[in-house]
């Protein structure tokens, strides 16, 4: 059999070996399902199909001869804008709902109604509360938490004029938003209004729809997601740098392996707690296991990695593959990015699949619903179940050794490493030792060889002395490829190597999960404020080389709306309207001082980004080079 068959699917060794095993075991993978879907419908790929009402469904012929308008009269611009608007709404809703669940836990912790949860970073609690106008004034932390939880809940509603946390952005940036009328007012409100605007016969001006799309995205980036990250830090601790390991090799042959998948640390932190319970460790030993090994995939894994150094077994496209190791005794999921195929895959092995959120149920999974009141107890019960499953393993195939990875770079940690202010970083950028910084974010997508986009782009940037910060599946990709180990400095250019070497950090900084993309916004704001500039003046950029999710679309929009030039790998469904393509890739520059670009080849994307960064340096009066 030709062993090179899986090379095109992924650049990773564990991915290729586990794909081969999956085929041998007769299990379909996401790649098989992707192939079966081809050819994709071009109407949908271009954004030219509409299912919003039953006067339709409609499609518009890009060749100009078939129907040019939907039944309602919407032309291509309107159709594409409406579809894009709903994508943004869905993405914003997902991350913001994640934030809402955290706000609820914060409120319950305040009244002692959430056993197992606590306020780990009280200093941060006070700092964030102050931003919401809550004075510490001799209050107990629980009182502050209660007030903060209320204030944050208010952010989700109808009554506010503006979201509180946009004040973290540079003043110039806030003015741009206000002038455009896109300063977000309420987190749920903007999403709800998007659904209203995209109903048939409401907003039929494509520019107006896109402007509200910007507002909706900002309500996520400077609203729901930011709340999620800040409350997670308050409840579970603000991340500090630490070393762990990544890839399928983190699973242990001789220990009970529990993998957490999904997003919200309200679930995964409780499992972490339970895995450290001495009684359960003893139970595991009694069953013949050396211990309990908690590992993560996707964002909830990143949350645990950032705060507790828990290892990561994989990213989006390997969530099915890790089950093929036969070593996962239980996978516990909450919500987002969890493929409904997992129950079917797990059924071919001994893995017990457990869903925990009322909002997210899956075929083939046992439902154990977590609420703030019962989460700690439920977690203990689940770990017991996982231990009981340890002896039911069949063939175990853990084909690789894990790779060392340093993570935990919250803004607080980065500033801490720099000595308390961004000044050393600014100096390094001004001197040209570091040319600039890029946030590489986003998912995997079977359209693209897994991790190729992330790794290639990262390599090209750091070898040209550009600091890379990454989140989500992108951060796991580069970690698997060795960019976060101590030897990674060898891959970097001389300037970056010197600066990161002095600080004792890798050239690629793991900043967290996908809601933690807001940390990049906070860092960019800190740099801009230190320079008295706007974010769009900085020599920075964003990239999502392998994105798939609606959440990523929303993140892309809030990055660009915040002034960060962002390069996407896969093309979003906008080619049905060249007006919209032009606006997003050119026109937005005049509106928000940044644009999107679409470039599937990461080598070329690197050139685009480097050119952009050098151009920003020139405009700031810094030494620049011709790329």
């Amino acid at each position, binding site marked *: 059999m*030709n062993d090179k068959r899986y090379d095109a699917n992924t650049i990773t060794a564990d991915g290729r070996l586990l794909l081969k095993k999956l085929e041998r075991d*007769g299990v*379909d993978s996401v790649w098989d399902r992707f192939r079966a879907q081809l050819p994709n419908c071009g109407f949908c790929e271009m954004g030219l199909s509409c299912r919003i009402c039953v006067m339709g469904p409609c499609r518009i012929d890009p060749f100009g001869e078939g129907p040019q308008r939907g039944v309602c009269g919407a032309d291509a611009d309107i159709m594409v804008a409406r579809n894009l608007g709903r994508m943004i709404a869905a993405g914003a809703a997902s991350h913001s709902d994640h934030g809402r669940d955290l706000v609820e836990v914060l409120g319950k912790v305040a009244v002692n109604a959430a056993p197992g949860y606590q306020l780990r970073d009280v200093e941060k609690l006070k700092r964030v509360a102050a931003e919401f106008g809550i004075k510490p004034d001799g209050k107990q932390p629980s009182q502050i938490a209660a007030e903060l939880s209320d204030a944050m809940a208010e952010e989700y509603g109808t009554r506010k004029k503006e979201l509180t946390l946009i004040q973290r952005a540079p003043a110039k940036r806030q003015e741009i938003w206000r002038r455009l009328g896109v300063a977000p007012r309420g987190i749920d409100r903007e999403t709800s209004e998007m659904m209203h605007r995209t109903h048939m016969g409401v907003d039929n001006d494509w520019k107006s729809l896109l402007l509200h799309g910007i507002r909706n995205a900002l309500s996520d980036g400077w609203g729901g997601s930011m709340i999620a990250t800040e409350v997670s830090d308050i409840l579970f601790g603000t991340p500090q740098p630490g070393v762990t390991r990544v890839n399928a090799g983190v699973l242990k042959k001789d220990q009970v392996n529990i993998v957490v998948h999904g997003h919200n640390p309200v679930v995964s932190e409780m499992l972490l707690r339970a895995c450290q319970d001495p009684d359960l460790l003893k139970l595991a030993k009694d069953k013949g296991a050396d211990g309990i090994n908690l590992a993560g995939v996707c964002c909830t894994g990143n949350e645990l990695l950032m705060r507790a150094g828990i290892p990561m077994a994989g990213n989006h496209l390997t969530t099915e593959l890790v089950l093929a190791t036969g070593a996962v005794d239980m996978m516990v999921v909450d919500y987002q990015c969890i493929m409904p195929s997992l129950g079917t895959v797990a059924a071919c092995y001994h893995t017990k699949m457990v869903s925990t959120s009322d909002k997210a149920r899956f075929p083939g999974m046992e439902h154990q619903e977590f609420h703030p009141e019962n989460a700690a107890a439920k977690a203990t019960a689940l770990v017991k179940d996982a231990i009981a499953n340890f002896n039911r393993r069949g063939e175990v195939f853990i084909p690789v050794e894990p790779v060392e990875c340093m993570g935990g770079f919250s803004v607080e940690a980065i500033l801490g490493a720099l000595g308390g202010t961004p000044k050393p970083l600014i100096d390094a950028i001004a001197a040209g030792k570091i040319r600039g910084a890029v946030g590489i974010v986003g998912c995997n997508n079977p359209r693209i060889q897994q991790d190729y986009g992330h790794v290639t782009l990262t390599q090209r940037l750091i070898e040209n002395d550009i600091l890379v910060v990454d989140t989500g599946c992108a951060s796991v990709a580069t970690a698997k490829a060795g960019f976060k180990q101590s030897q990674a400095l060898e891959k970097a250019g001389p300037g970056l190597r010197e600066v990161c070497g002095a600080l004792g950090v890798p050239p690629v900084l793991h900043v967290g999960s996908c809601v933690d993309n807001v940390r990049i916004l906070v860092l960019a704001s800190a740099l801009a404020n230190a320079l008295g500039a706007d974010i769009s003046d900085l020599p920075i950029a964003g990239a999502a080389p392998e994105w798939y999710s609606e959440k990523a679309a929303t993140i892309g929009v809030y990055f660009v709306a915040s002034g960060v030039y962002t390069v996407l790998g896969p093309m979003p469904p906008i080619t049905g309207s060249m007006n919209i393509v032009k606006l997003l890739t050119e026109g937005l520059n005049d509106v928000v001082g940044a644009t999107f670009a679409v470039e599937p080849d990461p080598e070329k994307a690197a050139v685009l980004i480097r050119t952009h960064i050098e151009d920003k340096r020139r405009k700031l009066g810094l030494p620049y080079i011709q790329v």
Partner: protein
Amino acid sequence: MKYVIIGNGVAGIHAAETLRQFDPPGEITMISDEALQPYCRPMISMVLEGSVATEKLPIRPVSFYDDLNITPALGSRVSAVDVDNRTVSVSGKCYPYDRLLIASGADPRRIKADGLGLRNIFFMRTAAHVRQMLAVLPDVRKALVLGGGLVGFKAAYGLVRRGIPVSMLIRSGHPLSMQVDAEAGRMITDELKAHGLDVRVGAEAAAFEGNGRVAAARLFDGTRLSCDMVVIGKGVFPARRFVPKDKIKVDAGIVVDEHMQTSAPGVFAAGDVAESTDIARRTPWVNAIWPEAVAQGRIAGMNMAGHPAAYPGSLSRNVIRIFGLDVMTAGLAAPPEAEGFETLSVTDTRARTYRKLVFRGDRLVGMVLVNSIEQGGVLTALIQSATPVRPPREALLKPGFNFRQLMPA
């Protein structure tokens, strides 16, 4: 113009129809030893198997000769062809010709063994053979099939479908060794064994024993196999004994050029008796299969009528459905060890498919498909047209392969 056609198999039929199309007033005489309506020879194995009724065998109506104004001379074999005087002799009668087509087909290869005169030992070449087999089947408890080629294989399959235990004696490592490679051969053997076929490799019959009717076969290694029916499927050989070899070049078959003309001007050959150039092998070869007979008959007819159509050469190919397995092959399925051939293959255990492609340079020269054979004709056409295959070749192996991938970008 006087046309004489020796043989009323499918090559002769298509030649006659083409002649009539191109030369309406021409005189056409057809000579054949089979006095039946023209029928489909490959379907006789399906009659044996029971999936097709005998009545479905004819491919032309009884009035075929009348409808096309053809003079039939049926029931006897040609005794001589006089190239100089342009005549054909049959049963004492002499037929003059301006253009002659020899489409006499092929006969089953004989074997050397004692006891061949016993009853219930059959060849499987004609509808009559199968009719005889069916007549004795009710009393048959165990059958023996000699040969794993197309004929032997189909006979064995047909008998197994009828519920008769069969032992198949083959010389090569697996059945259909001329058509498929070892991997597909293994899959076929497994499928048949799962349905009760007994396959013995390297076994040959030396003699048959019995009292009037065959009762056992004795192999060269001394083994004695009891059986009450034997089918000899050791291939076919072109029927050209009547051809004057000093006047018409004969190799294994009658050698023809790209216009189906023999070395004697005005004399053509087509079908199982003809030897043309094999497109994949690039050597003279007899590909005694139905679609070649059809194509060669038509091309011969055109040329005989003065229309210079060229024939690109023959290609061996076969498609067969065996229980839960479908197998399609074309060209060089198992290339020789010689340099210059590149093989790509993939087995998909989930879809239960096997695909193998053989390239010589950038041309496809052979293919084997097991299951999901619907689009095999695209590959066959690629071999026949000798179209250079642009990379990536692996695309031809993927389940999603379809015709579009061969079109220019």
